[in-house]
């Protein structure tokens, strides 16, 4: 018989670009570790059922429901939360566009939305509206009606294309 692992396990991962070594019980979900142990409150928990998308983080670039992922699952992975994307003094382009386009009201769903959009734009740099709506189908917003968010994503995609073209010219 294989030996069972100890009650606490080591999890080594890259969190927002910084190597972290965590010691967690196997049954602890990632959302609780991020929020309660690391103070990363941008990972919201609402439905607690992997449905609403408020707890979305990126694991190796893939949008992941932190409420339904055990912390041990991210061992060896690269985890990005909203705090790793930008900060108030230097917001990420997506955060800036969401602000400029009023793409939120209460803001509770916004971290999950932005991280999902980050993953979307890496995969589809020039998404059409149907693709945007399909990607956002797993993120619930009870305030905006989504139209402003879709427009913000389109604006962000355009801004990224302009930025990348400028970088190419510079290079």
């Amino acid at each position: 018989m294989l030996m069972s692992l100890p009650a606490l396990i080591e999890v080594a991962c890259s969190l927002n670009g910084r190597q972290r070594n965590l010691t967690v019980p196997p049954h602890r979900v990632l959302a609780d570790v991020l929020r309660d142990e690391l103070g990363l409150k941008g990972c919201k928990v609402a439905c607690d059922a992997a449905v609403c998308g408020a707890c979305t983080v990126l694991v190796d670039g893939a949008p992941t429901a932190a409420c339904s992922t055990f912390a041990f699952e991210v061992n060896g992975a690269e985890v990005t939360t909203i705090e790793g994307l930008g900060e108030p003094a230097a917001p990420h382009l997506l955060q800036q566009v969401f602000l400029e386009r009023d793409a939120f009201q209460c803001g509770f769903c916004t971290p999950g939305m932005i991280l999902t959009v980050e993953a979307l734009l890496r995969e589809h740099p020039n998404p059409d509206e149907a693709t945007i709506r399909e990607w956002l189908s797993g993120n619930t917003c009870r305030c905006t009606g989504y139209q402003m968010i879709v427009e913000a994503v389109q604006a962000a995609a355009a801004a990224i294309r302009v930025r990348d073209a400028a970088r190419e010219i510079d290079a």
Partner: protein
Amino acid sequence: MNVERVALVGLRSRARIAPFRLHRPSTIEDALEVMASAEPGTAAFMAGGIDLIGGMKAGYSPADVIHIARVEALRRIDEHDGTLRIGACATHRDIAESELIRARAPAVARCWRQLANPRVRCKGTVGGNVMARQSGYDATLMLMAADAKASVVASEGHCVDSSIAEAAMLQGLLTSIHVPEPGTLQLRVDRSLYPALVVVVGFRQSKDVVTRLHAAVGGAQCQAYSAPLDVQEPVTCADLAANAQALARAFVSRLPAPGDDWRASGAYRTRMAAVLLERLLAQEGRASC
């Protein structure tokens, strides 16, 4: 956990997840060994874990969790003797993006690209979908309509091939899903009434002749049901479009009676199963002609 938090936990919460012993095998043999050495009924395999964790939040408390998501042999996608083999721990995204599947079974790749949402596609696995025994899960229904089979390795080590529906009932480890003749397969899915009802039709086509038709229906309060449609083979696409209503009604007459819930009555589900199936058959008939 303080008193205030306990009061907020309710009947379903991540705070209710009970401690367990974690095992992380790297081979199928090791995974089976752990399962065999556990008390019967007290261990659970975990791949993507979405349904397992959901169940644990509702009180399911396995003493041992065997994490198999990183067993490489369970993620393999290949083709053998004209049959597509998909490892049980392949994620929906793996399936949608597999070059082999896109080339050899484009209908499968296309349907898997539309499954659920990106979060579920990235983490959810085809084996987890089957083993969750949720009759409305469209991946399972699509596999049923595709005439797919499942390979399950029992704890004694012997392999059993079963239907998709039976696989979830077997004791053992689901290792792979087999889709026969992937190149001739077409799939049409109607999720417009999800989660109350999902209807899928699998077609095998050769030029403008349909050689095999298989439908699957499931959803909340609907027992997943799949069966071939009553057709005189071969059926031309024009015949399919002309006979869509009769074929759909004959199929639906064999459905186990769906139940009622707040979404819809059982009678409505039955009626709409016939309507959606007829629509899919007519669409395919017209498209193929």
